[in-house]
């Protein structure tokens, strides 16, 4: 059997269906999209070739930059805050007794399996400024001056939405880290224990270095997942008030569908694809370059 599975032909055959589907549904649609981005287009027909005007228009639109600022804020929250917290949760889970560990595993996965709409609506109720949970708690402990109209004030709207995203996916990332931790051979820990290493030292010297492939995977997943952030915004604020909470994907949707300017919308999409490719390349190039085997 091995001789069949180790040939180049068999590799091609097994990869072909996925490659074909990827080409048909991901690569091929890019071509008409690029073509559309060079035209004035209302979604149904081209209204004339405009060259790079749609791109220039996107760069000159303040909402485009607001959307970028918001998107990268979410990426920052997700990566700089979310990943360390997920890792801490995974390490914490790993040292718990089995029964407690099972509880934490279930709890960690629970938000991630809930529908985004359900989660967003629950948090909209929490954030409700007049009788929502957060303001009620703040008032009850004498911090009335800290209350906000969380989803309509410019300063608070994006961090508020970011917190929901963080809450929903922190557990999922923790589970991915935890699964990675479980693949590390026990002998390393036993050796560290004999040498008298403390928990923090074990984490810093053994666990995290040996998890670099998982960290890289979660980093790419979190970064690109946060860049595609849309559904929470759609349900919680519809990008508003005004354009205050639009992300790049929302701005693209708004431009294409709400204003019927599909040429400009696809120009934003093309720019965004290039950004995603660049970021993905940078992560691949600079994160976990050396292969560690154990």
């Amino acid at each position, binding site marked *: 059997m091995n001789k*069949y599975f180790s*040939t180049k*032909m*068999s590799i*091609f*055959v097994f990869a*072909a*269906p996925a490659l*074909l*589907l990827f080409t*048909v549904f991901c690569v091929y649609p890019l071509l008409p999209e690029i073509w559309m981005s060079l035209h004035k287009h*209302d*979604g*149904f*027909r081209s209204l004339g070739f405009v060259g790079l005007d749609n791109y220039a228009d996107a760069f000159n639109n303040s909402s485009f930059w607001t959307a970028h600022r918001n998107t990268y804020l979410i990426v920052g929250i997700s990566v700089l805050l979310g990943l360390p917290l997920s890792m801490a949760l995974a390490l914490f889970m790993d040292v718990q007794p089995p029964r407690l560990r099972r509880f934490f595993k279930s709890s960690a996965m629970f938000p991630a399996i809930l529908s985004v709409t359900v989660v967003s609506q629950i948090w*909209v109720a929490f954030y*409700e*400024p*007049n009788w929502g949970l957060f303001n009620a708690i703040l008032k009850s402990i004498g911090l009335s001056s800290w209350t906000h*109209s*969380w*989803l*309509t*004030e*410019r300063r608070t709207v994006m961090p508020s939405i970011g917190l929901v995203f963080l809450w929903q996916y922190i557990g999922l990332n923790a589970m991915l880290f935890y699964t990675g931790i479980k693949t590390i051979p026990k002998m390393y820990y036993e050796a560290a224990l004999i040498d008298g290493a403390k928990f923090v030292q074990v984490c810093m010297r053994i666990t995290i270095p040996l998890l670099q492939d998982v960290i890289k995977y979660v980093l790419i997943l979190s970064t690109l997942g946060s860049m595609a952030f849309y559904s929470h915004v759609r349900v*919680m*604020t*519809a*990008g*508003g*008030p*005004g*354009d*205050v909470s639009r992300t790049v994907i929302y701005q693209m949707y*708004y431009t294409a*569908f*709400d*204003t*019927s*300017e599909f040429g400009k919308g696809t120009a934003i999409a093309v720019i965004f694809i290039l950004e995603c490719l660049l970021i993905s390349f940078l992560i691949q190039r600079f994160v976990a370059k050396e292969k560690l085997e154990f």
Partner: protein
Amino acid sequence: MSKASKTAGLILLAGLLLVASACGAKKNDAQPSPSAEPSESSTPAASNSESQAPGEKIKMRVITITTDENRNNIMEKYIKPNIAKALPNLEVEFEPGGGGEDMANKLKTLNASGDMPDVFWDDAGYFTPLKSTGSILDLTPYIAKDGFLDKYAVPDALKHFDGKIYSISSGADTYFTPVIFYHKDMFEKAGVQVPTTFDELIGISKTLKDKGMVPAVTPGKDGWGPKLYMLQQMIQIGDPQAMADLVANKTDFNNPSVKAGAARIEQLAKEGVFPDGIANLDYGPAMEMFTSKKAAMLWMFTWELPNLAKDDTVDFFPFPSAGDAYDPAKFVQFWGSPLNGYAVSAKTEHPEEAVKLAEFLAMADALYFESTGAPIALKTGNPPAESSPLMKKFIDWYNPIPTKIPSLALNSLDARTSAELSSQGANLLTGEYSADKFAEAMNKVWSENTWFDN
């Protein structure tokens, strides 16, 4: 060729077949593809009913509004119980369309993908792209031929400015206008009177707030209120002529009266007339705040009047004046547009049956609104229903008003201007955005508004 290569080839072929079948078009080749040029056919097309086997039902898809209580009532009480009997040859599948921008985007997407429903709720907001792609049927020859047109009190009111009829409705839209509903008992408890001027409105709102009540509520999320009526009302109460001019594109957002209207919205938000978070308040929660008496006033269209009239403590008053030029007995905004109503896809395989279905749906609307005592333009053949006292009060106020100004949202905005007005309107409601910024942003979009180019 080796056995392994043959096996590999077969697997690859199977994969290709799988992809090909998944990508294959569902409809047969005879289905006309979306045309770049509008279809201008004005004669009833031959129905494809002949292709149906005897006894086999024709399948129809309908997408209609599903956001408010009236629509749910119409569906549950008038459509579902009667459709099988009224149209025994049809098997109708209803898809919830939502409302507002969601509905618009759904139909625009279906249109772009060539998957339009046979019958759908048309709206001025998304009519233009449907018409420009030849996706909406001119109903005139069909409804003239079967006599449905004669059931309208004013048939000409159904015509678009190109002289064709694209949508049929109960005609209740013409009687929808924004008013301020209020709870009489809450006003009494707070010791306030119905305001007759804008300043009085601000004054009573402060009193209501001091008494621990939310003064007024309206849907603000995605700029719903500001776009559909609030900006128009706030301009109109100061200078109705400026509002009429704006709707007719005779002025722009630099007009001092238009700017003053925007400034009034900014003032309302800053003075706390609306609850915190109004800019993110959806339709349902806004209604709930009023009906549960958390809010004393509800700024809303009269399509909610039949439901609100069930509560004896609810009354309404027109928007109070902000200047001598406005008198609520002389000027009013009306919602109606000939484009709002049930429409038929020009791509349907069964146009005659689809038109019959649209007629049935329009009649269901008419029967429902008639049962609430609301005025309608489509004759049902029933004797006039007994109106509630609130409805009588409304009709007695509304009908004699000599100047009815069309709605800006339905009669003056292309897709981009409409979307930007939503965004900018929501900004105004935050109280953190000045009327000057609003006017500047809107004026830029207004100068590129293509609505009047058609």
